[in-house]
């Protein structure tokens, strides 16, 4: 049967027409590809507009088109649009082929003659290919209404609450003993200076007590299988050595535990906790965990003070790690960030000079519940600084460390300036490269801090040193910087230096991304589906990213993303089922020799060998459509829909104009 093919060339305004003679391309296709079945070739200003789509629909109906080629933008943008149009006109959507002459031609070449010539070749390739396209039916799969949220910081809590409030079940998994994330460590939040705990704690409690939320703290996801609607997730619940059924959270065990440990996580190394502990008073859940590395009983075999004093016999030294399997339909990753390790900038002296502090250390110092009860003091634990220097961009905007802007550090620096000013009356300096206070009420906060008398020096600090050159510098930390607005090098002696450290991807973000089947940018942040129009979805259907896992951002943006992803998940749940692209491999039973070469190639374990028939078979639900097995089958028994050998061979011939040879 000869196909009746329609070719549609889009101007995309001048985006394509500026570099490609679209009329010439359409005429050429009508004339030169006639023998292949092209019955109509048109050009139009905007094919993706409703008028453009109607044009195609009309031709399908009136001219009885059996195949459609649209030469326009990248298929990643509008393939779906034109397939839907075809479907509306009664043509199987998989009989439409997009030929990209914008991203792959007009935008990357500047010579119109060349652009036009290449477009013809691309159209020719698509025409040859579309002839070999087969009508396919989308695969429907039911959506499991449960959702997994990984990470219990503010973004993850927000997602979990939104979904739970809508009436669906959420598994909220958190690596640390309590949810709350970085926000629980902060004292105040910019620009309104709300107390962080005051606004966060109610949310934490709500998440902890919500009937639709299963909270799994001190737990990590270890394996993910399946696909959108039907993920099978394995979660390791680390042994707490505290029986959650019996524990009342009374705190006696912590009180009696004789082992004091520096708290590197919650107190940022500035304070202490016990070997059995809840990280902070408002922790959710309120059950303590036992730190096996430091517990005297685990090290020496004796002690058990906690067990002796526990009124409910909740201490259980025999507890083991537990693997829990849950089935969910969608996954939200809210895994957050790591703070840049300021020791790496050795010229700033963190770790060498005692009175250089990091931003998180300062948060703990200024927090009323922190190790100094909110007194801003030097590392000796008592002296109030008379002058403080706050250095911006530590580890950010620096090719030696992280090349990107960490977004929050400017506002954080301003917040610190305000707190120091308010609590100590010290002279405060802010050293910045560029002051970035975009977003609502942020610049007003900058104005306020200016008004308070904070001194601003525009210049990236060169070094912090204890080597005094003058009497007035002795015993101080000297900040050496070029005041770029004055054009002079300055040495400013201060008592305390705060490094506004940047944010960076979690150390294990690559492995985590791999486990959930999503990719990371070069920097290590998770990659969104579209940087502007689809910021919380990923390339993997059913997996969403929110908060700092996707890139540095502040609390309002993290919360907004948390809610946005929840809306996307609810949308999927309410649809009850999801359509999957029918791009799958299948095995021809007649020609399969049972050699089993394909079996080991599939990373999704979709290919199984059927002992009785002595052949292999593919489970379409597991197959992801990569086509590796198709390419490997020595008998040519495996075929892949959407990307069949015949389609690709035809496209090669078409691109090379072999199809112009008429026998």
């Amino acid at each position, binding site marked *: 049967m000869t196909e009746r093919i329609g070719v549609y060339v889009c101007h995309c305004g001048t985006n394509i027409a500026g570099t490609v003679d679209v009329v010439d391309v359409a005429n050429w296709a009508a004339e030169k590809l006639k023998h292949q079945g092209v019955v109509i070739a048109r050009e139009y200003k905007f094919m993706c507009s409703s008028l453009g789509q109607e044009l195609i629909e009309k031709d399908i109906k009136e001219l009885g088109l059996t195949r459609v080629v649209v030469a326009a933008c990248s298929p990643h943008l509008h393939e779906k649009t034109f397939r839907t149009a075809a479907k509306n006109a009664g043509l199987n959507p998989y009989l439409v082929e997009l030929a990209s002459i914008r991203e792959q031609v007009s935008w990357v070449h500047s010579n119109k003659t060349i652009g036009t010539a290449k477009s013809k070749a691309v159209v020719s390739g698509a025409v040859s290919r579309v002839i070999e396209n087969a009508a396919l039916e989308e695969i429907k799969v039911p959506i499991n209404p449960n959702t997994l949220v990984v990470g219990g910081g503010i973004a993850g809590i927000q997602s979990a609450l939104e979904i739970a409030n809508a009436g669906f079940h959420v598994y909220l998994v958190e690596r640390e003993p309590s949810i709350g994330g970085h926000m629980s460590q902060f004292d105040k939040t910019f620009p309104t200076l709300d107390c962080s705990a005051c606004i966060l704690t109610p949310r934490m409690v709500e998440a902890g007590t919500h009937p639709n939320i299963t909270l799994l703290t001190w737990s990590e996801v270890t394996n993910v299988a399946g696909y959108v609607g039907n993920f099978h997730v394995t979660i390791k619940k680390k042994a707490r050595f505290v029986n959650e059924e019996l524990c009342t959270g009374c705190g006696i065990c912590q009180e009696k535990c004789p082992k004091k440990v520096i708290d590197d996580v919650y107190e940022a190394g500035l304070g202490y906790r016990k070997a059995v502990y809840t990280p902070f008073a408002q922790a959710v859940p309120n059950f303590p965990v036992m730190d096996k590395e430091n517990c005297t009983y685990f090290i020496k075999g004796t002690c058990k003070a906690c067990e002796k004093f526990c009124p409910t016999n909740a201490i259980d030294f025999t507890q083991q790690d537990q693997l829990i399997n849950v089935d969910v339909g969608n996954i939200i990753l809210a895994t957050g960030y790591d703070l840049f390790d300021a020791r790496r900038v050795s*010229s700033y002296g963190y770790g060498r000079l005692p009175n250089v502090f990091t931003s998180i250390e300062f948060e703990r110092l200024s927090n009323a519940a922190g190790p100094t009860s909110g007194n801003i003091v030097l590392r000796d634990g008592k002296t109030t600084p008379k002058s403080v220097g706050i250095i911006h*961009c530590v580890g950010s*905007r*620096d*090719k*030696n460390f992280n090349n990107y802007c960490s977004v929050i550090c400017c506002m954080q620096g301003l917040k610190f300036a305000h707190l120091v000013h308010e609590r100590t009356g010290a002279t405060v300096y802010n050293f910045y*490269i560029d002051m970035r206070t975009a977003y609502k009420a942020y610049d007003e906060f900058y104005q306020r801090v200016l008004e308070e008398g904070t001194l601003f020096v*525009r*210049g*990236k*600090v*060169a*070094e912090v040193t204890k080597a005094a050159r003058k009497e007035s510098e002795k015993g101080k930390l000297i900040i*050496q*910087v*070029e*005041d*770029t607005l004055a*054009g*002079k*090098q300055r040495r400013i002696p201060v008592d305390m230096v705060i490094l506004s450290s940047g944010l960076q991807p979690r150390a294990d973000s690559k492995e985590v991304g791999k486990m959930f089947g999503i990719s990371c940018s070069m920097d290590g942040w998770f990659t969104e589906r579209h940087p502007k129009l689809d910021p919380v979805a990923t390339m993997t259907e059913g997996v969403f990213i929110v908060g700092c896992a996707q890139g540095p951002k502040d609390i309002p943006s993290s919360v907004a993303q948390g809610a946005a992803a929840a809306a996307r998940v609810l949308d999927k749940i309410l649809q009850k089922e999801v359509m999957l692209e029918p791009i799958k491999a299948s095995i021809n039973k007649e020609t399969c020799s049972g050699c089993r070469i394909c079996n080991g190639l599939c990373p999704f374990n979709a290919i199984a060998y059927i002992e009785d028939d002595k052949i292999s078979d593919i489970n379409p639900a597991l197959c992801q459509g990569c086509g590796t097995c198709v390419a490997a089958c020595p008998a040519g028994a495996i075929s892949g829909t959407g990307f069949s050998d015949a389609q690709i061979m035809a496209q090669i011939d078409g691109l090379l104009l072999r199809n112009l040879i008429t026998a």
Partner: protein
Amino acid sequence: MPQMTDERVRAGMNREEDLSLLHEVSMKTAGVSHLEMCIQCGTCGGSCPVAEDMDHTPRMLFAMLRAGIREEVLRSNTPWLCVSCYHCVVRCPQEVHIADVMYTLKGMAIHAKLYTDSTAPHFSQTFVGMVETFGRGYELGLATRHYLRHFPLRLPGMMPMGFGMITKGRMAIIPKKIKHIDQLTKILNRAKQLELTS
């Protein structure tokens, strides 16, 4: 409407040259200079141990290169004061090869005869002259020649030090010469031709 004065026209023309000056410096610098990447953060000026004595901080020079202000850049004492300590180089967030750019600016200033104080260029040239003649550095000859020319008054003050150095055998009275000085001369002559053609 203000009239288009000659100065304005000339300023406009100079602007045409802006990037050409930056590019010229970039091209003449060993390695990849990354000059165009400067974000004017001042890490270099803050790091420099001799910034106080400089006419312009390195950062300002880079801004001037962008602005195409050729003469003032080549007259600046900044490149001559650079001690090549590389603090700015390792700290620069944009990986600008600052110290090497300073070498380039020195060379350009010598060619354009635009330096204001000849002490430093003469010292370099005297040193290079020694190396080209002997193949080795010759401290005594260098110091004497250089001091006679630029700090004759300081020479007596330096005598105790020079005397100490000589009596302790730390300053050679006679220069050492390498064996194959002719080979080195050939190489350097060829290199100079290549420099001209570039």
